[in-house]
């Protein structure tokens, strides 16, 4: 294989890897968006999922336990947010902001308490389970790019398909969407918009928790600010994807490609790495402006 092909394979393969956390989180955020709540807490929920997921996985030396802990912790935080918003009638955005602050605080404080550091906490975990037989990775190009990924990465795509099914083909999904379209009508038909919104927040929690955990797992470590804006990028993916799961997945791939590219350029070019780090945000911002919905 030529050099260019190798580079391309690397970039594309890492695009799929980098898309995993985004996909989990933005599809989770889609539920709350559809129910009529712009969930700016994805960032914080991802951080919570990353920390508790990695901590549990490290403790039990079992990735599956980590997954459960990531989901449980992020869902707990989104339930807290739901109660504050729906029962205490708090402002959606301030509550979301508070969750983001809380996440940053709790993970750092606990990291200091448990691991006595506020920097990198590395975990030695079993090798990630490959979803495909090793032989498939030998297929040129397609093999390494598409067929050499972990179970978690493949799950992100199953999660996307599953979410599409739930959203379009179940009573639950229809009720969440209906709440976002016309909450008053849902109430008039005898159903509770608040319950639908709470459920949507739980979905957000599950997705963000998994997304955060995927981030941690990809570096086998937890660092404060591990999420570094990915929750917001996931939020923009929802808009760019026009709230359709498959288009959201495409948007996530776009942003992940930007991240992959920026990683690559950092290693090999004369452009200063810190500038390159801004690339995913810039791509996200530009896409947000292009997708804007006025005039």
């Amino acid at each position, binding site marked *: 294989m030529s050099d260019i092909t190798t580079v391309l394979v690397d970039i594309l393969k890492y695009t799929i890897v980098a898309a995993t956390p985004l996909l989990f989180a933005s599809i989770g955020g889609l539920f709350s968006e559809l129910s009529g709540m712009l969930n700016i807490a994805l960032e914080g929920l991802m951080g919570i999922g990353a920390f508790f997921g990695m901590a549990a996985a490290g403790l039990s030396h079992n990735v599956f336990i980590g997954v459960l802990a990531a989901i449980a912790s992020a869902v707990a935080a989104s339930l807290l947010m739901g109660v504050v918003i729906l029962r*205490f009638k*708090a402002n959606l955005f301030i509550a979301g902001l*508070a969750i983001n602050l809380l996440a940053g605080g709790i993970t750092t404080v606990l990291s200091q308490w448990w691991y006595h550091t506020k920097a990198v906490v590395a975990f030695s975990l079993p090798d990630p389970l490959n979803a495909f037989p090793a032989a498939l990775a030998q297929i040129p190009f397609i093999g390494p790019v598409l067929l050499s990924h972990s179970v978690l990465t493949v799950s992100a795509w199953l999660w996307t398909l599953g979410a599409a099914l739930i959203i379009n083909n179940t009573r639950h999904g229809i009720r969440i969407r209906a709440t976002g379209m016309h909450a008053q009508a849902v109430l008039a038909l005898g159903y509770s918009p608040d319950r639908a919104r709470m459920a949507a927040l739980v979905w957000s929690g599950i997705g963000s928790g998994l997304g955060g955990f995927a981030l941690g797992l990809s570096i086998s470590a937890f660092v404060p600010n591990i999420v570094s*804006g990915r929750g917001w990028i996931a939020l*923009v993916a929802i808009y760019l994807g026009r709230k359709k799961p498959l288009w959201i997945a495409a948007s996530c791939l776009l942003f992940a490609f930007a991240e992959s590219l920026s990683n690559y350029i950092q290693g090999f070019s004369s452009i200063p790495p810190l500038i390159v780090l801004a690339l995913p945000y810039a791509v*996200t911002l530009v896409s947000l*402006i292009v997708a804007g919905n006025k*005039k």
Partner: protein
Amino acid sequence: MEAERELRGPARVVLAVGVSIALAAGVLALFSQDFGSALAQFFLEPFSNRYFLGNYLADAVPLMIAGLGVLIAFRSKNFNLGGEGQLYASALAAGVLALRLPAGIDPLTLWCWTALVGTLTGAAIGALSGLLKAFRGVSEMISSFLISAIVINISDFLITGPFQDPASNFQTTRQITRQFLLPRILAPSKLDISIGLALALILVFMVVAKRTRIGFELKICGENEEFARYCGIPVAAYQIAAMAVSGGLYGLAGALLVIGPQGRVIRGFSSGLGWSAISVALLAQGSEAGVVPAALFIAFLGTGSDHVMIGSGVPSEIISILQAVAMFFITARSLPRLRRRRP
């Protein structure tokens, strides 16, 4: 139907302040070996001597200025979540200017220029989000955050690259010479005369809000947009202006830190100030005068946390948790009664 108790502004503030203090005490009880002395460190040490008190007040100054900006944006129903980047980039712009101005310049001229450049930098970044909202319908929350993220990366690069102090082991710009830093009060603490400027600004904004047509029209825009249109007020212009003012005050806060307590721009300069300013604005409950006690409270939580960290081994990030809890209570509009509603 009316089984819910409406929470009024003052009640929310009291709850928020009370609960966050109680929580702070709780955390101390959990983490510290010696609860009594940790408690004393947290609550009393900031006031125990001239040095600590001065540093505590110095911490409150940027919170007052930036919090005032967030408050103005809130008043027109705009959320500026880009404070971190606005403050950082403006500080860098101001710092670089201060280092580049000829050494023979009069300090007052230097202060004015740096403050102006810092303010304008922040205002431009903030206004961008306002423009995107007005003309592209882009949520100002998301755009201000993303712009801030980009700006932070670029600033990081500039500090560690072109403007790196070659003599320093830290990732920082060169130090501004002492004569160009704002005069200190309560020496040897970090407190300088910028506290006067902060208080004066709050006074000015109070007057603008209460006495001028601009303040009046901004208030109408935030309270009822349809009514504002009925009154013939240009709503979009006020949205953009509010975001610009908010960004500008973040910028000013950054510039004053550079020519004041910090004296240089270290990487990671803003360190949460952008978010704390939002807490300040929320606690101030829409009143300019309220910004002063709110900033003093949030700075107190921060200073207290720092002291405890040094003393008891609790990380200073505890302040984020305390702020988050305060936010929850400040935004709760009703407390449901414990007994269930009639079906």
